[in-house]
């Protein structure tokens, strides 16, 4: 142990003792440290050092794997959050445009022939009759749905749907 850190011991001791005492302290310390240098401790075994290095390499590998797992979980968590937010947003937008329960979308029920017809007067009359019938059915559907919530009527609803289909086909038969 030949190297010692550079500090001025004399100056340090003189802060606490007079010059003579400081000199004596310095002498005591230097002689005692010389004894320590003359009696070196044994060196660590080479096998021990090799084992320590192997252990460190193993720990580093485990640390890296742990770090990779942590990053993976963080990325997965972020991805899941993004997907969730996207799904919720999409649902909100889709629901905004979708018809409310019980609301009949007229345009989807009106046959394409009415839209394509050039005879405006006839088409208007047909449309008025057709719209009136749809409104009537719509009222019945709403009534049925409210009574369905109260506990009855799958068959009634089916009958009504049949009626709607019949009206639709009769309309085109003339």
């Amino acid at each position: 142990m030949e190297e010692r850190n550079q500090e001025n011991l004399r100056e340090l001791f003189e802060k606490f003792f007079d010059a003579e005492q400081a000199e004596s302290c310095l002498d005591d310390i230097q002689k005692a440290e010389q004894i320590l240098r003359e009696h070196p401790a044994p060196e660590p075994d080479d096998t021990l050092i090799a084992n320590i290095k192997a252990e460190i390499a193993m720990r580093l590998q485990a640390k890296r794997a742990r770090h990779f797992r942590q990053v993976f979980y963080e990325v997965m968590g972020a991805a899941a959050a993004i997907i969730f937010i996207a799904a919720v947003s999409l649902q909100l937008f889709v629901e905004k445009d979708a018809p409310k329960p019980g609301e009949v979308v007229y345009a989807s029920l009106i046959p394409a022939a009415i839209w394509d017809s050039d005879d405006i007067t006839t088409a208007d009359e047909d449309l008025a009759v057709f719209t009136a019938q749809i409104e009537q059915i719509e009222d019945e559907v709403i009534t049925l749905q409210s009574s369905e919530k109260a506990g009855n009527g799958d068959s009634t609803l089916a009958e009504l749907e049949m009626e709607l289909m019949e009206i639709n086909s009769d309309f085109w038969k003339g």
Partner: protein
Amino acid sequence: MTKSYELARIIAGCKGGDAQCYSQIVDIYSSRCYGYFYRLTGNSDISDELLSELFVKLVEKIGSYKGGSFESWLFKIASNIFHDHLRSKQRRKKLIETQIIEFESETIGPKKSDGELTDKLQIQLARLDEDTRELIMLRFYSQLGFKEIAQMRSEPIGTTLAKTHRALKKLREFMEG
């Protein structure tokens, strides 16, 4: 002694998880740290264990090293490991107190058994109290200045100086006596 910029490069490598840099740290400090543990315990098997523990702790704690004296930081961990060892030894001792009393009555002073190599210095060191012995070894093996040792031990520098002086003087008297 490793130049400070070279040591800084090695420590940066350790922080980056470079096994080669850890290997260099082991090469630089293993001898001094082993000497520190050996002179405090007087037992090569225990010193082997404590040295291994120190470098494993180094891998775990390297992120907490924020600059300053690396020796001071490393020997602070070494000192904590030694104190943990003492505490666990005390617990074990309490458990088998009756057998130990019987055993100690037969042999007084340092013993030579189970990896315990005894030299004159080790015998005389055993006559000093634990705190004094640790102070001497910290000063000798860490190569830290009194200012840093005082900071490490959370005591005024004057106290550290006086204690070290008294301890080394006593050790010198024991060795020459």
